[in-house]
């Protein structure tokens, strides 16, 4: 594929998240894999790619729990913002993980799963 339309790419990424998957691109020229919303290959800058959906399961690299959340998140009773690496490929994503009230609830390395896309809270995660 060579479609670089950013709106189409983001729409497809969200569709994958709604199926609990993460959409990635594999470069046709150098096989580097990147998260789908990056349009050109970060390694060789090629524009041709193959779309691949990976299971949205991974492990926590780092996270935070907000006491002072930004607008739109004030009504959530405890959540973590999480950076995680997928189990099946070495790419990272980040998302909103509700129900986390203290750091001990989410040790580094904990397993998480993509659990849909919410208009208000973005990419939603679930702790496994």
């Amino acid at each position: 594929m060579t479609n670089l339309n950013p709106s189409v790419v983001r729409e497809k990424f969200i569709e994958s998240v709604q199926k609990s998957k993460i959409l990635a691109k594999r470069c046709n020229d150098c096989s580097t894999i990147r998260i789908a919303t990056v349009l050109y290959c970060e390694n060789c800058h090629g524009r041709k790619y193959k779309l691949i959906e990976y299971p949205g399961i991974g492990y926590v690299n780092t996270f935070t729990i907000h006491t002072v959340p930004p607008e739109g998140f004030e009504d959530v009773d405890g959540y973590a913002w999480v950076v995680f690496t997928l189990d099946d490929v070495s790419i990272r994503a980040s998302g909103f993980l509700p129900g986390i009230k203290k750091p001990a609830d989410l040790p580094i390395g904990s397993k998480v799963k993509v659990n849909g896309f919410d208009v208000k809270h973005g990419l939603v995660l679930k702790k496994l």
Partner: protein
Amino acid sequence: MENVCILGAGSTKYGKLNESIIEIALSASVDAIESAGISPNDIKAGYISNVFGVADKQVHIAPVIMSNLGISHVPGLTIESACGSGSVMFREAFANIRAGFYDCVLALGVEKITHTGTTQSTTLFSYCSDFFYEGGNGASFPGLFASIARAYMTKYKADEEDLAHVAVKNHENGLLNPKAHMRKKITVEDVLNSPVVASPLKLLDCCPFSDGASALILCNEDFAKKSGKPYIQVIGSGRGGSPAAVQGRKDITTIPGTVIAANQAYQMAGISPKDVDFAEVHDCFTIAEIIDVEDLGFFKKGKAAREIRDGATSRKGKIPINPSGGLKSKGHPIGATGIGQIVEVFEQFSGQAGERTIKDAEIALTHNFGATGASAAVHIFKKVN
């Protein structure tokens, strides 16, 4: 290529200011013009950095500033690069003098944000992130740096007390700066006992939201010499970028844009980190200063926390960091911060820094970035005797 000099500097106090964004911007500009001993008519272009002018009902700031300085015919340019706006703008002013387009320009940074309140400010700042992955998923700026802090603490076995030592040191320096926002001595216990904002960062790990403006007069060396006024020289300039989203970085405990910018600036100046006598670095949160001083080459990766605890970055340490008080104590009016750092260098090198003067300093470095380091700039300065 022209040698680039700084002939004058001015700054408002940083903090909660009652004047409008234009009033504080003009105040700093007048201070810089008077400091340089020039006429507004000597200014051939105006470079202005600002992020949230819309919050004080003023965008398209540059021509408004030029008009109110009585030089409406002079071209102005407003530049936004989140918290790194000032240094990114400085680079453009520097490049235009160096290339010979102008012999004298105004570089002015300004921000007016405190009237919006904490929730709105936090929300506005979150728009500086890669919103699709960060702000839109609930990450505030303290939250983004908190996640970086947790990654650093996990990788290098650092702890919350290590972070607190950065805040304590910068508040000690800020006490000596009459223009600092937070002039208050604090202890490690104060930091550790302050409320959690985004774990593991606490309130006293975070810089304040500040209003303020800082301004510089840049010129070529001929112009500086003819003025008969004291000046300093810009000997290195570097710009770098990083993945805008934290998730896109191979190593969350380093900021690639800083490393790129620093390498460029060191190369242009023909020096190495050991030649730097002091530095003003981007300590928006305590963890940022720890990572900065490693990325700038002052300490090996993973070693800065220990060095800071041992006093290596205090005013009398081997590499004094943030003698002004840094963003943490002096304050962080985000459009002005990068210029305010250079104002500190000018004051240090021109005998105006009072008790916070770094003795015998001749080479200084400034480092400033936007967001979590997506845009970064490093500049190096030399005292001219």
